[in-house]
């Protein structure tokens, strides 16, 4: 069987876990084996049902006091124990922070390879295409492992329920965990923003070096507000201290997926582009008609953003 490791927050299944189940279902099909799921620190009926709806035939639940909240070491130890005892043909998780972290922990404990952020996996010979450079490059690898441990690249598949959903069997997986593993469990949570975040905003107004200063972002803020969106920025901007890093779009920032990304004064370097390419549409505002972002955008305005952005806001207000 193929074992899909499920990320959850205790109540709801993470999007990355539903992606892993979708990716895993297809991979298990090619392997000719059933898909099972690992539900760590939880046995909620709703989570089991979601796993079943996405094609898991058996859900292995692991409960233990150390697992009462997420912790990379304890979760990794559970996955390692499952590999030893259940002998899956492959283990898969979503390519999120947690998915990659837990499988790396498990791989380290088992002393086996771990291939992060796979896009395409051929189980016949375990040749794999995976993400490098945050998606700017792809790498073909061949994997030789007792058991392949893989994550699928975040959002590389759209999560979909199975055509024939399973009513999964629940099997309790008894784990004996060292209480000391609680040392890496979450101790506390700080909630900063409820509501629209950069990664889920329907509109993002992005500013780059061309904005010129922290104050220069005021017109971008105004336009974002008019459109119910969020302000994003390039690394040149965070490096200059004009915006907090939480606003950065790109390889080492946030991946956005809005209906439209309005990119002003941004050249469109590849590391920025990989964070922006999930946008359905892109409108570039740039002085340079040859800028990379202009040639990749759906629409462009050639001009000074300091004049163009306020004019767009004024036009929106005039029409309302």
């Amino acid at each position, binding site marked *: 069987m193929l074992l899909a490791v499920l990320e959850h927050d205790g109540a709801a299944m993470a999007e990355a876990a539903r992606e892993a189940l979708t990716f895993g279902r297809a991979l298990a099909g090619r392997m000719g084996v059933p898909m099972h799921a690992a539900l760590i620190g939880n046995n909620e009926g709703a989570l089991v049902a979601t796993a079943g709806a996405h094609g898991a035939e058996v859900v292995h639940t692991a409960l233990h006091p150390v697992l009462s909240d997420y912790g990379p070491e304890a979760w990794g130890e559970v996955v390692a124990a499952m590999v030893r005892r259940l002998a899956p043909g492959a283990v898969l998780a979503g390519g999120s922070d947690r998915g990659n972290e837990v499988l790396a922990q498990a791989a380290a404990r088992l002393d086996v390879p771990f291939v992060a952020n796979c896009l395409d996996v051929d189980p016949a010979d375990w040749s794999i295409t995976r993400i490098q450079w945050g998606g700017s490059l792809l790498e073909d690898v061949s994997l030789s492992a007792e058991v392949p441990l893989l994550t699928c690249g975040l959002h590389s598949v759209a999560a979909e329920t199975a055509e024939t959903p399973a009513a999964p069997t629940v099997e309790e997986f008894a784990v004996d965990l060292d209480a000391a593993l609680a040392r890496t469990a*979450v101790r506390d949570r700080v909630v900063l923003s409820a509501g629209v975040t950069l990664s889920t905003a329907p509109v993002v107004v992005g500013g780059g070096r061309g904005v010129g200063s922290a104050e220069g972002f005021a017109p971008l803020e105004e336009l974002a507000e008019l459109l119910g969106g969020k302000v994003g920025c390039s690394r040149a901007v965070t490096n200059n201290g004009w915006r907090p890093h939480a606003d950065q779009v790109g390889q080492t920032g946030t991946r956005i997926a809005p209906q439209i990304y309005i990119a002003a004064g941004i050249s469109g370097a590849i590391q920025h582009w990989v964070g922006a390419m999930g946008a359905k549409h892109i409108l570039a505002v740039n002085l340079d008609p040859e800028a990379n972002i202009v040639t990749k955008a759906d629409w462009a305005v050639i001009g000074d953003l300091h004049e163009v952005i*306020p004019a767009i806001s004024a036009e929106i207000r005039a029409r309302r």
Partner: protein
Amino acid sequence: MRICCCVKRVPAPGARINVTADGQAVDVAHLGFAVSPHEECGVEAAVQLTEAHGGEVTVLTLGAPEAAEQLRYAASVGAHHGVLVPTDGSGWDPQRTALALTAAIRTLEEAGGPFDLLIFGNESADSGGFQVGIRVAVALGRPMVGGIKGIEIDGPTVRARRETDAGFEVYELPMPAAVGVKEGINLPRYPTMRGRLASKRLEVAELAGDALPGGQAMRRLHRPAEAASETVILGTGPGAAPSVVDVLADLGVL
């Protein structure tokens, strides 16, 4: 505090990344090199911690001999020691890299005492394996958490913050510990005049190290297919605003 920060030398590409004709490497013919961004912030975090609590920062890198440049850069922004585990510059797989780094850290600890904190980048900018730091920490028996965007030292404890969609998770690791940090944890400083002098004076220590290759072998690098796009130019200057707003109206985002 004794802190060891592991960094990787990576090419610094611009608008696109080109691959050599044989598909075996990034074409670096016209590129500079840098410390991978997460680790650049890792060095800054380490230096800030020793400024606040005393102690020394050792920066460790495994890579081509030219990676000594990145150690000198680290010295120019406040790191005290630089250690290179030289390779032929080929891309080592994550298991091999982690084994060699683990051995190097053991050697450094035997000589100078244990490190209170090991700092890694969450993932390298190029190969992005998401695992070397975790493998080293597990081999050394240290608690390790990744995705860290805030570190405080509280007695024997490292309090670390990890960004989530809604805010932060807080972890409390007993030292000796390890963390994987992300860009945004701080804004790395620029080298000062004094820093540049320190970097010139840095004696890069070399540690021989190798390990058997792991199970993941690179075959070929290639660029993802690019969707051909035709850009519609809506106009020049502020006069284009009405056409822009027409587009926004068509998309239903007004």
